[in-house]
């Protein structure tokens, strides 16, 4: 379970996230929607501390995963990122073979047993619904795959180290409709074993795949509710306006 309490985040003097408190349940899909620059991606990157890489940022408040504040000094960022996997907007496979891409996370985390790695690579590729397409060309460069396949490879790569949470930052925005629907099906399947948080620009997508939806605007969490309620009968007028396309 992910829980945030009074999160405030600053890029230099820019107040990017304003007092955000919310809870995300285990084995659910939570979608963040909102206009560009509203802070939804920034919020997502808090959970695996990717914002640490950006200079001159500041955070106040608490971000708890399974009850532990991940911004405490005792937390090892490497360990955290093993538990909280991430898939990025643009597919970013490494310039290595398909096999090595999936094995990478295991190798950097100290796994050296070949038979285990091979088994885990297959499991991950199956879980990412890519195994049948690539099983005969595992040694080939990952760049030979199509964009949609590359993105599923990146999902497999994230799954290989057995995270419990999967963060997805607009994972389908660079893909064609068919690849997008494959990714969406995949998210539906993965929900059984992982807690998924997804940022999306596409409201239909949020409506299709998520259990709960959070609507962000100008750094504030305007509304956070069950997806059905959110899209059928939102509580806030701003949400209604955004969803019906009156702005954004």
């Amino acid at each position: 379970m992910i829980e945030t309490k009074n999160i405030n985040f600053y890029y230099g003097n820019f107040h990017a996230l304003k007092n955000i408190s919310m809870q995300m349940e285990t084995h659910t899909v939570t979608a963040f929607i909102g206009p560009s620059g509203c802070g939804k991606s920034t919020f997502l990157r808090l959970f695996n501390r990717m914002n640490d890489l950006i200079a001159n940022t500041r955070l106040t408040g608490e971000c708890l995963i399974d009850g532990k504040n991940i911004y405490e000094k005792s937390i090892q960022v490497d360990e955290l990122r093993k538990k909280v996997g991430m898939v990025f907007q643009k597919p970013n496979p490494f310039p290595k073979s398909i096999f090595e891409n999936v094995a990478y996370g295991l190798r950097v985390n100290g796994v050296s047993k070949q038979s285990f790695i091979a088994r885990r690579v297959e499991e991950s590729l199956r879980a990412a619904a890519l195994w049948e397409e690539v099983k005969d060309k595992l040694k080939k460069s990952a760049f030979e795959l199509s964009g949609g396949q590359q993105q599923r490879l990146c999902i497999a790569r994230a799954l290989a180290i057995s995270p419990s949470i999967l963060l997805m930052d607009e994972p389908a925005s660079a893909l064609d409709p068919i690849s997008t629907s494959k990714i969406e099906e995949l998210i539906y399947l993965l929900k059984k074993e992982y807690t998924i948080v997804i940022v999306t620009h596409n409201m239909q997508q949020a409506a299709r795949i998520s259990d709960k939806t959070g609507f962000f605007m100008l750094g504030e969490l305007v509304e956070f509710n069950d997806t059905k309620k959110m899209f059928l009968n939102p509580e806030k007028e701003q949400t209604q306006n955004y969803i019906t396309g009156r702005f954004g």
Partner: protein
Amino acid sequence: MVLRLNRNPGILSPILNNFVTLFFLFCNIKGLILQRKKLRNFREQEFMDKKIKQKIAFGFFRALSLLVVGILFWILGFIIYNGIGVISWEFLTTAPTDGMTAGGIFPAIVGTFCLIAGSIVFAFPVGLMSGIYISEYAGNGWIIKFIRIMTNNLGSIPSIVFGLFGMALFVNTFGFGDSIIAGSLTLGLLILPLIIRTTEEALKAIPGSYRTGSLALGASRLQTVTRVVLPVAFPNIMTGLILAVGRVSGETAPILFTVAAYFLPKLPSGIFDQVMALPYHLYVIATSGTDIEASRPIAYGTALVLIIIVLLMNLLATVLRRYFGKRVKIN
């Protein structure tokens, strides 16, 4: 004589003449076209004018770039023409004799290779690690700005100053004497900025998405650099090394006071021995040999060997680069 080659106006003038003629020719063509154009309507005129201007401009640029290549070939041809005659197996494998007016240049070849190897052994790891630190780890604070400015400054110091510094530090203070190690360290210092900068640039060219992808999987920054970033950047880092090797094999000033021997027909037996080196040998027999006229063919031969060594190094590095490039993609 190689040193005189640049000062001789007689050799350059035909090319300069051609160049001037070419330019006037372009001007004439333009004049003719302007006359013809008056017959056409305005819009077409404008369009044609643009196209022709472009053609003339690019024709001019092309002529200039061809001129550069032409000069290069001309220098190469000049040296090959004058030097090929003395090149023989014996020339490459024996020591100079008769006051360096006869015999070969074997000790100088060996010496140059020693200096290349020595300076690379010293400068490559240091430069590589500094480049990695600057590009991947240091961020953008004042320390890093200071380091960057200082490395750039280091790169613009004249090589003779490096020679004097090397003599003061390595030869005298450290007590290495005139030796391969003193010369290699001096040359190493000289090429260090070059290696640091090319490493830095090669790493900077790698997309940030590789790094974030790797870090998001729980890899440390060091693992990210060694396993993802460096393998991709390696071919370009090799380019920096190629440039460095070219520089080392041709430099004379830094080895003048630190390693180079005027005449030393025997081979070095360790890193504390002096050696002869090709560029210095060339300088000696062209300016202060026992009989400059008699050793002139040997000077051309030496220049040719030096050029061939540099070209072979480039070739080797290109092959290595291709190999690494392929390996990176597949693995």
